[in-house]
Each structure stands twice: as C-alpha cells, then as structure tokens.
C-alpha cells in the first residue's frame, strides 16, 4: 500500500495524468476501507439472526437489506469482502510466488529440467483453472484457506509461464553474461539480476490475477465451494442471493455491485500500473 502510494505520487510529479491509477486507487481504497472498518466495526453482527426481519428490503436500518436468516447484508458484505480479499491475496501470493520460482528456474536453466517442468505446467494449463481448483478443493476440503490454496495452485502455471518467458528473453542478455563471467552464483543472478527486470510484467499480471481470483472464487462459490457458514465470501453471498432474484432483486444486485466495483478497481489499478512503466 505504502509503496503503491509513492508510485502514484511520483507519477504525478512527472506531470502525467494517470486516471486509471487514480480511479483504481479510489475504488480499491473504498473496498480496503470497508474491509478495515469491518474489522473494528459492523452495524450489526454479521452472524446475528432475526426471524422477524427476514429478507427485508433496503432501509435506513439495513442499508443493503437483510438476508434469508434476517442478518444484515451490509455487515455481511463488510465481512465477506475481507474473506474475498484474503482468498484473493493468498491466491496471488501462492500463485505468483511459486509460479515465479518455477518459471525463473525453468527459464534460466532450460534444458532437461526446463523441459520437464514445462510439460507439467502445460499439462496443468491444459485443463481450465476452475477444474483444477475443483480437484484441489476435493483434496484439501472446503473453507477459506483451503479455497485460497486450491486457487493459488491453479494460478501457478500461468505465472510460471509468464516468468519463464521473461527469463528466456533475459538470460542471454549482456548484463547476465557479464555477471556470469564475474562468477556470480546462478541463484544470485536469477533473483538479484534478472528478477527485478521482470517486475513490470509481473505486477500487471498480479493485478489481472487479483481479478481472476475474485471471479474464480465466485465461480467456485456458485458450485458450492467456499468459506464455512455462517461466514460467507462475496461470491458465496452472491450465489446464495441469486435464489431470491424474483422477490428481492436488491439483495442480489447490491452484492453483485460490490463484486463488480472490486474487480473494476483492481483492473483499473492494473491498467494504471502498466501506464507507469
């Protein structure tokens, strides 16, 4: 966050307008603010049920209405955004972290090792990520962190591929050759010399990855996999809410909008970061 803000300022200093970055920051900021406020304060307890207040519409008391258990939807959205963000963050940490290491090694060393790794990566890419996560969820069980791990693993191949491409491009460049001649160790070359040069590409893939993670989590929730009740991620709430499309459209639409705004925020941010470079 801090690092991001400084990037934003520096950009302004050069006199370039970067509306994407601005809007992305605002939207993401709102979502983050909601999540942080949600940690300390929610209007109601997100799990407090009330049989007399089931499926209420929007009112001053419940600004997003109530759900089928009489729980305050806004409080649940505050809590759910946190779960969604946790899942997305872990997904990216795992996907980008592991993917970068695998991609870097495969790209830098190439040869037999690279070939075998890439065959496995290709094999994983050959079936869609939602399917991959489905298999992993069956393996780890369902729950917030399990879903994050499952999604994270299914994100590894695409990150590995991207990073490998970058490393293939860089490994024969002059500065790498020089470092090698100076006797710098391979590990140091990989992580200190080449990796910083791939940050640009990585960062924008991370932002796209964030979006995909939020959307993939929603997809998994629709298929019945996700956080454990009574808590729910945004995706789970949306798929619960869609059953009430006829009688309480506001319930569905308000949650859908939060997801859309969150995804838009990330994609603007990603676009904005791309512009910086």
């Amino acid at each position, binding site marked *: 966050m801090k690092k991001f803000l400084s990037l934003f300022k520096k950009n302004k200093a050069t006199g370039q307008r970067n509306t*994407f970055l601005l*809007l992305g920051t605002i939207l993401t900021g709102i979502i983050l603010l909601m999540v942080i406020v949600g940690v300390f304060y929610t209007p109601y307890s997100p799990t407090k*049920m009330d049989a007399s207040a089931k499926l209420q519409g929007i009112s001053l008391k419940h600004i997003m209405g109530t759900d089928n258990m009489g729980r305050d939807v806004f409080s649940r959205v505050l809590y759910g955004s946190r779960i969604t963000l946790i899942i997305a963050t872990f997904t990216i940490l795992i996907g980008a972290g592991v993917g970068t290491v695998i991609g870097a090694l495969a790209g830098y060393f190439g040869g037999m090792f690279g070939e075998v790794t890439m065959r496995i990566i290709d094999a994983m890419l050959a079936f869609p990520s939602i399917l991959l996560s489905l298999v992993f969820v069956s393996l780890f069980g*369902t729950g917030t962190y399990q879903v994050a791990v499952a999604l994270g693993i299914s994100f590894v191949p695409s990150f590995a591929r991207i990073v490998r491409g970058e490393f293939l491009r860089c490994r024969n460049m002059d500065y790498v050759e020089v470092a090698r001649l100076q006797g710098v160790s391979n590990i140091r070359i990989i992580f200190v010399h080449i990796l910083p040069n791939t940050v640009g590409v990585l960062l924008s893939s991370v932002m796209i990855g964030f979006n995909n993670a939020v959307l993939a989590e929603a997809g998994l929730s629709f298929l019945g996999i996700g956080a454990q009740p*009574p808590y729910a991620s945004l995706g789970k709430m949306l798929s619960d809410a869609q*059953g009430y499309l006829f009688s309480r459209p506001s319930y569905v639409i308000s949650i859908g909008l939060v997801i*859309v705004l969150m995804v838009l925020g990330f994609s603007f941010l990603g676009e904005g970061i791309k512009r910086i470079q």
Partner: protein
Amino acid sequence: MMKKGIGRRGLSTLLVVLTTLTLTMSGCSGKKAEESTADATNATENTSSGKDGKAETADNTASSDDLSKITIGIPQDIDSMDPHIAQAAGTREVLFNVYEGLVKPDQDGNLQPAIASEYTISEDGKTYTFTLREGVKFHDGSTVTAEDVKYSIERNAGTDGTDPLISAFSNIDSVEIADDSTVVMTLKEANTEFLAYMTVAIIPASNEDPEGNPVGTGPYKFVSRSPQENVILTKFDEYWGEPAYIKDITLKVEANADSIVMDLEGGSIDMFARVTSAQMSQLSDKFDVYEGTMNLVQALYLNNAEEPFNNEQVRQALCYAISPQEIMDFVSDGKGTEIGSSMFPSFGKYFDASLSETYNQDIDKAKQLLAEAGYSNGFDFTITVPSNYTQHVDTAQVLVEEFKAIGVNATIQEVEWNTWLDDVYTNRNFQSTVIGVDASTLTAYALLSRFRSDAHNNFINYNDASYDAAFDAAVNATDDAEKTKNYKECEKILSETAANVYIQDLPEFVVLNKKFTGYTFYPLYAQDFSKIKPAK
C-alpha cells in the same frame, strides 16, 4: 505505448464508474418504491398479483399443451435403473413407478398386496407364504412366475455366496416354489416385520441386462435415459392395477437449484418435489403447492463416544439450549413437525408426540447442567454438515447462534457428501453432524436398529444397555402390541438419555402446475406418478 490516448481513456474510465454508480442508485430507488407497496400488502400477494398478467398469457399458450405429457424436475440424476443396485433415495422414489414387490405400500403406509394377491405369516413369524396374483405382466409382455420371485429375492439375499445386497436379507433361510403360484419364504429368526422388505422389486429372471433394459411390473415402463439430462417413462398399458392417467413422463435433471423457480415459471417443468420455502414464496399462482413431510429424523447427531458428548448431562444441556420452532422459523417459515426421538409422525402407532416435550428451551437449566458436568465455561465443538443439503446447513447456522447463549462455541464445517459418508458415517470420525435420517422400509426396526450398541450403522456410537434390552424385546416379540410398546420404550430411552439433539421432521413442499392435480404423499420415499392427472 499510446501516450496521447491516456487522458481521453481516463475519461472513459470515469464513464465506467459513473455508469456503475448510476446503476447502484437506480437499483436503490427502485427498491424503495417496491418497499412501500410491499408494506401495504402481504409479500406473497404482492408477487402473485405482480405476475398475474404473465400467468394468464402463459396459460393461453399452455391451453394448446398436451396434457398427456408431464415434465417433472428431479434434483439429481438417478444412480441406476437396476432396482436392486439403485441406492439413492431420489432414485428409489422414481423407480417406485417402474417396479413393484410382492407387496406395495399405500399412501397411509400400509402394505397392500401387489404382485402377491395374498400372503400369510406363520404364528412363529418364521414362514411367509405368498400367493401370486394371476396374470401380472412384465413390461416385456411376459407373465410373472414363481421363478422370477424366487430369483429376485435370492438376488438380494446373496444366496449364491456373495454378500446380501440388503443386509436384513441375511435372515432369509430359503425361498421355495411350492407350486406355480405359491412361494414360501423361511426365515432363520422370527421377524414379523419382515413383510416390509417384500416391497423389493420383482424382475424377470431371464433379463440379462437390468441396467440397460429395465423391465418391471409397475404402472410406468422405461423408455430411455440420458445422463444428467432426463429419464423418459411411458404408461404401461397392461398394468394389472389402477391404470395411470398421464401417458408420457419426462424426468428432467435439475442440477442447479437456483433455476428451479425460473424453469417452473418458464414452463420447462410442470412439477418439482421438495422446493424450499424461499422458492415457494416466489412462485406465481399458476402452481399448486402440496405440503407434506419429508419423513426423516432431522437432528444434531452427537458422537456419543467423543468428549464432551460422552457425558449425558452435556447432551441434555444442548437439548435444552435449542428451540426447534425457532429453527423452523428460519429454515422453513415455521413449517415442520417437532420430534423428540428417532421416529416421525408418519409411523402412526410407533410415534410418540409427547417426547418432543422432554426438553423445552431453558437456557438456565442448560447452563446448570453444563456446570454440573464440569463445563461451566462452555466448550468448543465442530458441526460437520454435508454441503449439498441447504436445509441442514441452515439448521446448523441457527444452532450455532442458539448454543452461543449457553456459552458453547460451535463451528460449522461443510463437507462434500462423499467426505461426509467416509468420515462421519463410515469412520465415525466426527463430533457432531446435522443430517436427516430416513427409513429404508416402513418399519420401526429400520429407524431404531442403528442405535443398538453393536449395529454396524450406529454412527453416533450410542451405547446403552437398557436400550439394547428394549430393542431386542421389540424385535423378538411376535405380539404386535408388545412390539409397539417396546419400540416406544426405545424411543423414550433415546429421548431421555439425549442420544442426539432431536429437531424436526422437515416439511416437504411439492409444486405442481395447476394443469395437473392429484399429487399424493407417501410416508416413505416414493413419488407416485400414476395418481397425477390432468386438472380438467
């Protein structure tokens, strides 16, 4: 890259945000308008009056519809067309229309002669004699013979050396053909309730492929099936009993619960059994809703061998902490039948309604019991729930809230059905679970046998000597009154020792398009399509 475009593109981003925000606003204001009308009229009236116009237009197009056809939605695909292999409750209730046993349950739960025209049970409860009804035809046109009956029973009893497909059938000593129309079955141990198992489907001994070419004697015969798509049945013209009304039945697999309302309204299905109260409230008035019960014992099943549930006082405290009525209010708009033991009302004489009064919600009493048991500060435990059963997951959520009041902190763990079967049911590796237990046959035995301390399906590890004694007395009794008395004793013991936190027999809502009528409930898993008829 395109540097000159940035500013303008920023503008378009702004547009995105504005559009989205406008959408939000209009969503809000639209909502408010609806709110005020909803205040004036009752919510269901509001939706139905709103849909009147549409319902009419739909009816107009429907009038040209062919009432000799009906499409019925089923929540999951059937697992087998072979009646002896099929296990899922959802399959059993469909196959009820295709296959019949020697006897067949009616809507009151009494066993009526079917393929057998009459039967006698010997005094000692060991010998069952069946006289076959004359001229009962299989769907392939052949007549049911004593051979077929013997074959069908033996196929389930595993007399060829394999294990019995139905565990109770291990009690069968022999099946003899006395003459062309008489079959005599002898049991190893007396059991006057065994007739209930004779609902087992009779299939032709000559059929090599009961899976691909299912042949039975029921009012409907199999036409075709396509996995995850549909099963098609057609009326069997040579049926021995009351003929069916509707000629063609398509059973459409509805894998997505959220599309059921839309599919009903859109007209792609005419009927769906077991809709939720939420779905029901969204339906227009072109549907009739039939209300019955699901015939299962929904409870928070406790692993009696695990800390702290090996302590009777703890179990009782949990029973005092909950209110079944409150659960029903949340889960099914207040509908459902409170139960206090492992028995539900459809069983008539075995059901003891007074047991639901054993524990009435009493937070102080619950806290006191916990303190006596040494848990004055409460404790933590996990409720494992199969994620595919919304009503059980919802119930668990209400339970968690209710337990908070007595300082007990429960956490829900949703698992897949397979994991549930493995971990909870088979390996008994769980603390507690919310599930509905049904009866495979119309006998008290089917519901109560699992709590005998040595039963293979005693997944809660219930162990009570007085229960075992009462249960054995009930099974061995040949006198019906004595049997009933002992079974009731069993139920009472389960209730008083708080074997489980008993909740309710869930309500069942069946939605049928008003073009049709005549849906009939059975006290066990059965959908009798032959009773459905056109409304006019």
